[in-house]
C-alpha cells in the first residue's frame, strides 16, 4: 500500500514538474522567438497614460527588443482601422498589439482582426473582463473622478450634486466631446448613475438631464478639459478618469496645486482590453509583450501610472503590492463602490448620450 501511494505521489510530482518545465520551456522558446523577430510595434500608448513610458522602457530593458511606437494620439477606432488598413503590410506601420476600450474587443473579434492568446496568468483575470476564447482580455481600469484646481476653487466638491452649486459657475468641463470620446460619455454616465441612485438603466438619461441643468446654471464649460486648460483657468474642474487626473496632477507638480476626488456616489469603472492583431508582423514579440504586461512586474508598472491593473485583487491578496504604491492612490474605500457596467449596459448608455447630447444639453445656446 505504502509503496503504491509513494509511486503515485512520485508520478504525480513528476507530472507536475514536467508540466511546469514545459511551461518554462515554452516561455524560453517564446523569448528566443521574440528576440529573433527583434521588434514590437505598438499604437496609441501615450507615455503619460498608465505609466506606459516606464512599462515600455522596462520591456525593452528586460528583453532587448525594439519597441516601435505608432501614433500615441490614436483612439480605439484608429487602432482598429490601423489593423484593417495594414492587412497585407509587414512594414513598421502595422500594429502588433492594441489597447482599446471594452466594447471594441468583441467587435474587433467579430471582424476577424484578432488572434487568440492566453497568458500564463490567464486564470487570475476576472471572467467578466476577458473573452472566453482568449481573443481579448481586460488590462486595467480606472474610475471617473474630479480634478480640481485648488488655486481657483475654494471648496473642493465631493459628489456630483455639489457641482450644481453656484460657486462653480463656469468651472466644470468634460475631458472630451460626448459625441466622440468614451471618457466624456462615461463622465455623463457616472453623473447619471449618481442622479438615478444606482439604477444603471436610467443612468444615460439622468446624466443628460444633469448636464442640461449644469449648462443652464452656467456651470458647464464646453471646452475639452486638459491639464493645460486646468492650469490656465478655463476649466478649473475636469471630469476625467482617475489615472489621467492623477498623472496630470503629478506633471503639474503643484503649479497649480490640484486635488483628485472620487465622488461619493456614481463611481463608474472603465475597463480597457489588450489584444494581438491577427495580421501582426511580429506575433511572438506580441505574445511576449502580453506575458510581460500580465506578469506582476507589468501589472505593477500600470499601478505606478495610477491605473488599477486587472489582476489588482489577486496581487493584493498575495501581498505583492508595495505599500508606497498603495499610499499614492486614492483611498481603496472609494473603489469598493465602483460599478463595472457590462457591454450591453455601456452600449445602451452610449446610444442615449452620444445621440441625444446635442438636443438635450445642446450648448448651442451660446449663439
Amino acid at each position, binding site marked *: 500500500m505504502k509503496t503504491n501511494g509513494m509511486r503515485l505521489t512520485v508520478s504525480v510530482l513528476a507530472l507536475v514538474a514536467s508540466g511546469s518545465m514545459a511551461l518554462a520551456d515554452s516561455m524560453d522558446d517564446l523569448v528566443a522567438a521574440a528576440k529573433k523577430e527583434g521588434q514590437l510595434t505598438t499604437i496609441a500608448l*501615450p*507615455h*503619460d*497614460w498608465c505609466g506606459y513610458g516606464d512599462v515600455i522602457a522596462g520591456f525593452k530593458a528586460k528583453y532587448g527588443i525594439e519597441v*516601435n511606437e*505608432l*501614433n*500615441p*494620439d490614436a483612439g480605439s477606432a*484608429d487602432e482598429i*482601422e*490601423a489593423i*484593417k*488598413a*495594414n*492587412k*497585407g*503590410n*509587414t*512594414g*513598421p*506601420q*502595422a500594429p502588433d498589439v492594441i489597447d482599446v476600450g471594452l466594447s471594441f474587443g468583441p467587435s474587433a473579434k467579430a471582424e476577424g482582426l484578432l488572434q487568440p492568446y492566453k497568458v500564463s496568468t490567464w486564470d487570475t483575470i476576472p471572467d467578466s473582463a476577458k473573452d472566453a476564447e482568449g481573443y481579448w482580455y481586460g488590462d486595467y481600469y480606472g474610475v471617473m473622478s474630479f480634478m480640481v484646481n485648488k488655486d481657483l476653487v475654494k471648496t473642493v466638491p465631493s459628489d456630483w450634486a455639489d457641482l450644481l452649486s453656484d460657486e462653480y459657475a463656469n468651472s466644470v468641463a468634460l475631458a472630451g466631446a460626448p459625441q466622440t470620446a468614451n471618457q466624456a460619455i462615461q463622465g455623463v454616465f457616472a453623473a447619471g448613475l449618481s442622479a438615478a441612485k444606482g439604477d444603471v438603466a436610467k443612468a444615460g438619461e439622468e446624466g443628460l438631464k444633469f448636464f442640461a441643468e449644469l449648462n443652464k446654471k452656467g456651470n458647464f464649460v464646453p471646452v475639452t478639459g*486638459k*491639464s*493645460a486648460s*486646468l*492650469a*490656465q483657468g478655463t476649466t478649473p474642474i475636469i471630469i476625467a478618469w482617475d489615472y*489621467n487626473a492623477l*498623472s*496630470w496632477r503629478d*506633471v*503639474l507638480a*503643484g*503649479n*497649480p496645486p490640484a486635488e483628485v476626488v472620487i465622488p461619493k456616489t456614481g463611481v463608474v469603472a472603465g475597463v480597457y482590453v489588450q489584444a494581438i492583431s491577427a495580421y501582426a508582423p511580429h506575433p511572438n514579440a506580441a505574445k511576449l509583450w502580453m506575458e510581460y504586461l500580465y506578469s506582476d512586474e507589468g501589472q505593477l508598472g500600470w499601478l505606478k501610472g495610477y491605473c488599477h491593473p486587472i489582476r489588482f485583487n489577486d496581487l493584493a491578496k498575495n501581498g505583492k503590492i508595495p505599500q508606497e504604491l498603495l499610499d499614492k492612490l486614492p483611498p481603496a474605500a472609494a473603489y469598493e463602490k465602483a460599478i463595472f457596467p457590462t457591454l450591453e449596459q455601456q452600449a445602451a448608455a452610449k446610444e442615449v448620450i452620444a445621440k441625444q447630447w446635442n438636443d438635450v444639453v445642446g450648448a448651442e445656446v451660446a449663439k
Partner: protein
Amino acid sequence: MKQSRIIPWIGFGLGALYFLIPLIATFEFSMRMERGTYSFKAYRIVFADPGFQSSFAYSAVIAVLTIIVGVALVVPTAYLVQLKLPRLRPVVEFLTLLPLVIPAIVIVFGYLRMYNSSSILPLTGSARGTDLLLIFAYVMLSLPYMYRSVDTALRTIDIRTLTEAAQSLGSSWPRIMLQVILPNVRVGVLSGAFLTFAIVIGEFTMASLLNRPAFGPYMQLIGANRAYEPAALAIIAFAVTWACMGLIQLVANLSPGSKR
C-alpha cells in the same frame, strides 16, 4: 496723399494686434511653469530634447522636396488649363479642393491599403519608399493652396502673348516653362511654397501612421499631457518655421530674374 498714408498704417497695425496678441498670451502662459515667477523653464525642457533638432530637420527637408514636386506638378497643369484646356478647369479646381474636405486619416489608411509591402507598389516596404509616399501625401495636402496661388498669379500675366513670343523666338516647351512662365509667377509660387512648408512642418496624422520621424509626431509626444511645454513648443515652432520661410524668401529673391 498724406491722408492715404495713415489708413494703410492703421490697417497694418490692427492686423498686427489681432495676430500678435494671442501669441503673446500663449507666450505669457508658457513662462509660468515655475510657480510665482516668470522663467524659461518650459523652453529649456523643450530645447534639451535631442529629438527636437532631428525631427525638425527631417520635416524641413521633406517640406522642401514637397515644394519642388508640387511646383513641378501644379505650374504646368495650371498653365495648360488656362491656355489650352479651359473646359478642364472645373474638374481640376474641384480636385484641388478635395484634400480640404476629405479627412486626412481616411487618405492615409487608403495609402496603407494600396501601397503596403504586399501590393504592386510596395512603397511602405522601405524607409525611402515611405518617405516618397509621405512627400506625395503632402503634395496632395498642399494642392489646394499651391494651385490657387499659382492660378491667381497666372491670371495676372498674359500667358498667351508670352508663350507665342517665346515660341516665335524658337523656344522649346521646357524652356518656356522654366525661363518664361515660372519667373513671372514667382509671387504665386512663393505663396504656395510658404503654405506648403507650414503644412508639412505641423502635419501629424500622416507622418505618425506612416511611421516617419517628423516634427508633428515629435510635438505630440512632448506636448501630450503637459500644460506648459506645449505652449512653449507652439511658440518655438512658430518662430523657427517663420525663420525658415524668411530663408526661402531670401533664396527666392537672390535667384536671377527676380524683380523684388
